């Protein structure tokens, strides 16, 4: 048996479009995603809104059936698991949502909120239940003074700690973190990130981290996958992917978040245009409509006609770009070498 806790192979999710008549039109929110997360590791999934990151999370949680592909958790295929196994998996795969206030029932107090998953899964009752709630509270850095408060009596950071405690209550092995700090202020974000690192170490947790914020993903992740229009376009070890990104989209994302006075606003934006709709996925490479590298290379036809496959660009590092390997290329009769370290800028 492999040591991979989670394995996604060719995962695709299409949503039917209502009112589209007999044509049976659908949009492919996720279109062929492969990823593996070894036990105890953190995989960060980044991308813009609409790239399909949250749909991947929903598939992993079993909240929505797959259209294609498979998800294997700890050697068990989610699609074929029987109901008893599924119940167990619900305990072992948990989620932390983006908006803590929306994830907590406003009419329940903190102790009931944290006890709920324990009673639902018949994990504790009576004195043992109270003891377990107390220790979970301590795990997430809250104290007994918070026990009888309602969500509206908590700050955003405290509420997110309660959400984390609820996720931990059932003793999960995999926790999906869906934008866990996007709604929080900087200092509170730092506190929650520290908490997530500590909990991973103490409980040996495995995380699937979903975020649009590259600096958060960089901070927590061992590996990173960059999503664009339903696909992972680049994937690799965090330091290498961010240190020498090979896909032009990853480079543009990085350039967009460099910040701290290092960005000159008089230069063109790192990427032009907007992400096309999943209704209307471009032919060939789905990124070609916004790709600065393609423009730099004189718009080679292959970008428009051929869907690039992921190629190895380094140890454990793949990118889905025809020109990602930095090999000698011939464009319109001009031969040259593409240096992967060259900055790529939009127009």
């Amino acid at each position, binding site marked *: 048996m492999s040591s991979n806790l989670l394995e996604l192979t060719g995962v695709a999710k299409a949503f039917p479009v209502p009112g589209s008549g007999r044509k049976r039109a659908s949009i492919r929110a996720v279109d062929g995603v492969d990823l593996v997360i070894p036990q105890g590791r953190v995989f960060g999934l980044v991308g*813009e809104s609409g790239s399909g990151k949250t749909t991947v999370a929903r598939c992993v949680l079993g909240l929505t059936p797959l259209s294609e592909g498979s998800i294997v958790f700890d050697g068990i295929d989610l699609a074929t698991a029987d109901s008893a196994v599924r119940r167990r998996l619900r305990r072992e795969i948990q989620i932390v949502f983006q908006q803590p206030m929306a994830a907590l029932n406003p009419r329940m107090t903190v102790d009931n909120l944290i006890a709920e998953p324990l009673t639902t899964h018949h994990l504790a009752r009576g004195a043992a239940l109270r003891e377990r709630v107390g220790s979970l509270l301590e795990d997430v850095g809250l104290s007994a003074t918070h026990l009888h408060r309602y969500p509206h009596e908590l700050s955003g950071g405290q509420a997110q700690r309660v959400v984390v405690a609820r996720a931990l209550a059932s003793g999960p092995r995999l926790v999906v973190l869906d934008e866990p700090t996007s709604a929080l202020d900087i*200092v509170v974000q730092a*506190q929650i990130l520290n908490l997530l690192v500590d909990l991973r170490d103490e409980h040996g947790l495995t995380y699937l981290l979903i975020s*649009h914020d590259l600096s958060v993903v960089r901070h927590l992740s061992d590996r990173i996958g960059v999503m664009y229009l339903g696909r992972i376009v680049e994937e690799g070890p965090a330091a290498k992917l961010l240190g020498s990104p090979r896909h032009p989209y990853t480079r543009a994302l990085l350039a*967009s978040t460099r910040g701290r006075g290092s*960005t000159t*606003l*008089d230069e063109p934006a790192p990427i*032009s245009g907007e992400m096309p709709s999943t209704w209307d996925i471009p032919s060939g490479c789905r990124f070609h409509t916004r790709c600065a590298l393609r423009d730099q290379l004189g718009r080679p036809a292959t970008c428009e006609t051929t869907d690039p496959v992921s190629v190895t660009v380094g140890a454990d590092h793949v990118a889905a770009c025809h020109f990602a390997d930095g090999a000698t290329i011939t464009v319109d009769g001009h031969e040259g070498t593409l240096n992967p370290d060259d900055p790529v800028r939009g127009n």
Partner: protein
Amino acid sequence: MSPLLEIEDLTVDFSRDGRVTSRALRGVSLTVDAGEAVGVVGETGCGKTLTGLSVLRMLPENATASGRVSFDGQEMLELSDRELRSIRGKQISMVFQSPGTSFNPVFTVGYQIGLVAERHLEVGRPEAQELVAETLHAVGLPNPESVMRFYPHELSGGMLQRAMIAMAIICKPSLLIADEPTTALDVTIAQQILRLLRRLQREQGFGVFFISHDLDLVSDFCDRIAVLYAGRVVETGVTAQLLGRPRHPYTRALLEALPGRAQPGAPLPTVPGAVPTALGDATGCPFAPRCPLVVERCFEERPVLAPAGPDQAAACHRWDAL
């Protein structure tokens, strides 16, 4: 030369049944020069949006502002409603955080932007619509003639934010208040919008009052930065200086807490405790209970904003210990 906008000792109280229930701003002082970009940063509830709204006197009904807000020689807090209306949208305009909720969903984008021009520039509808097309082109929207006929829901977030900027600049204001103009947008689109604002600022020469929680964005865009904490300016200075050598422990805490600077996985420095409530007020420094540099004096005497190096001021007794 006096600054374009001068806010002095601005206080905003919220009251219910004639009693003050909270004091959200506690004496904010700030200036924006003509053509200058000033960033106002701070955490949720520190009063940055309220400061922006006070300039246009768009506060909720149960809020009272006192102090001085002087714009281009006019005392904003003393103007009649009629005088105020002639300034709003014309000399001072505002770009809000969520473009999706800032447009009226039942009118076309072009019609709504046109109304601003009709009202302030005394032009007829056809002329206004021509101006709208021109302005939409200026904010980088392709096919302005067709975009004008769209309803807000037919445009993406990035396109709507461009349309809102068009609405804000159509009368060529001298001050633009931008309240988290890119927070609702993806990073790649945010970069496009920032560049657009910068280009328009260069072309038209307006001052920008840039409200954001994002220090990175503010540092890219602004000439000067003011850091707000619990309703007060705790530090202000020229961008590079303030970021390079913060003179208030709160500013330093904000910078250190950003995950981009730290070693991945290493504990991020944070400050203990939470922001004080808007009710009541301690005698000393409001940051004292959370401050790593705290001494006894901090609890007894409130520090005022005072020079702390060239082009920089901090409200801290111990700024030179940083």
